[in-house]
């Protein structure tokens, strides 16, 4: 293969429900002297909810950040439906792989402003996506700083869903929420997965894994120790 062909940006791969959505091939991540992920080999199923379980510092968050290239592996390859993520247009990749973070990260301004930050400015689409996460249209003009933790996390999910991602990566999205808000978010995730959006759901909560996960990956000190 010529150098030019090797460095060319490839189009995004077409979804194959039966194949793996993400493949991690001997992936290691090092920050300075400390190795956070060691030789991770993992296939994330192309449907349903795959939970990544692990204690604090086990490398769960690092794993999620590799999926949309907020971070690159120090060695090894991460593939999205068989294509090395580094060969894809990174901005397009991030539209395809939606992400929800541990802490609700709404930007200054109204909920509507936050939804418009995706580039989608159609108000009807805003109303529709808010409805899909259980928030009504009255939230659109609300100052994002006035939302409760649960509302803010749902607004963050709405913002991500507005991009119509084909995969969702959620990094402990219920960690800062109360029980009721966490259950609401779990329900939304289940509905999304049933609608055909595969989800990689990171958590340290075993009971939550029992409730929502179709598959489970356990990480310990940066290594995959169990897949079930």
């Amino acid at each position: 293969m010529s150098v030019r062909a090797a460095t060319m940006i490839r189009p995004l791969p077409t979804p194959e429900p039966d194949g793996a959505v993400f493949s991690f091939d001997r992936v290691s991540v090092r920050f300075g002297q400390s190795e956070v992920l060691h030789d991770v080999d993992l296939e994330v199923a192309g449907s349903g909810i795959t939970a990544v379980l692990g204690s604090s510092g086990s490398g769960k968050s690092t794993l999620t950040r590799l999926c949309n290239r907020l971070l690159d592996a120090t060695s090894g390859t991460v593939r999205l439906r068989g294509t090395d993520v580094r060969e894809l247009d990174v901005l397009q990749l991030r539209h395809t792989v939606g992400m929800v973070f541990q802490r609700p990260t709404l930007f200054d301004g109204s909920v509507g402003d936050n939804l418009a930050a995706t580039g989608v400015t159609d108000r009807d689409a805003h109303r529709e996506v808010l409805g899909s996460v259980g928030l009504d249209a009255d939230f659109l003009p609300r100052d994002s700083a006035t939302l409760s933790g649960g509302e803010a996390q749902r607004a963050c999910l709405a913002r991500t869903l507005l991009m119509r991602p084909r995969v969702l990566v959620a990094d402990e999205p219920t960690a800062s929420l109360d029980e009721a808000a966490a259950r609401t978010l779990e329900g939304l995730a289940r509905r999304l997965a049933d609608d055909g959006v595969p989800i990689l759901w990171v958590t340290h909560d075993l009971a939550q894994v029992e409730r929502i996960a179709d598959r489970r990956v356990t990480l310990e000190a940066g290594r995959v120790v169990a897949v079930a």
Partner: protein
Amino acid sequence: MSGPVELLGVAASGLLVLVAVAVSWWVGLGLGRDLIEASLRALVQLALLGLILAAMIAPGQPLALSWLWVAVMVLFAGWTVHRRIPDVPRLWLLSMAAFAASAAVTLGVLFGAGVFPVEGRTVVPLAGLMIGNSMTATVLVTRRIMAEFKDKRLEIEARLALGQPSSQAAAPYLREALRTALIPQIETTKAVGIVFLPGMMVGLLLAGVTPVGAVQAQVVIMYLVLGSVAVTTSVIALGMRRILFTSAHQLHLPNDEAR
């Protein structure tokens, strides 16, 4: 006499340093030695500056010598910025580029419009004034950008995760840092003439320049400082974006391994 103040007058003003030392001793600040050291150091530096300036602006000296000195000032200012904020990679180069851009714009306007003639006696002091103020603003804006980016790292990454390019994701936080850095300069400009008399204007008045002449020169200098600070900080902000993001639109903060 070579100016409005005799040598004896300079020596007499040293009494004021002694007053400061006495106050320090009386209040128990323990800064007496520092005060004397700083005053002597400033005296030596200014004396050297005077000697160099005298040699440079002497009739018949090539103008290239003055520009060479400006280049040395840019180099030294860049190094000073790097020394004050050593953890930002390539900051020396970036700040030198910012000072050079600022010099090109501000001196270009002043000399291009014929406000001052292009001579050694104008090039060196104007460039010195511009670089000195820009250096302070550069340190301030760089620290502010680093603090803002560390504080808002999650928000910036949330924007990146939405598919925003780094230029768009960084814009609100760069803007905030720039505002913080420029506001003191704007406040100083607003207060001039009411709250304080600028040093240069006082110097001109003491040198026997008419108040109108002193004001005219001061206004030009004030605008030079304002313009140079604005240009420098903008270049720094643009450059910091390149330093803090990879080509794959990933945020890369130095000394921040929190993931």
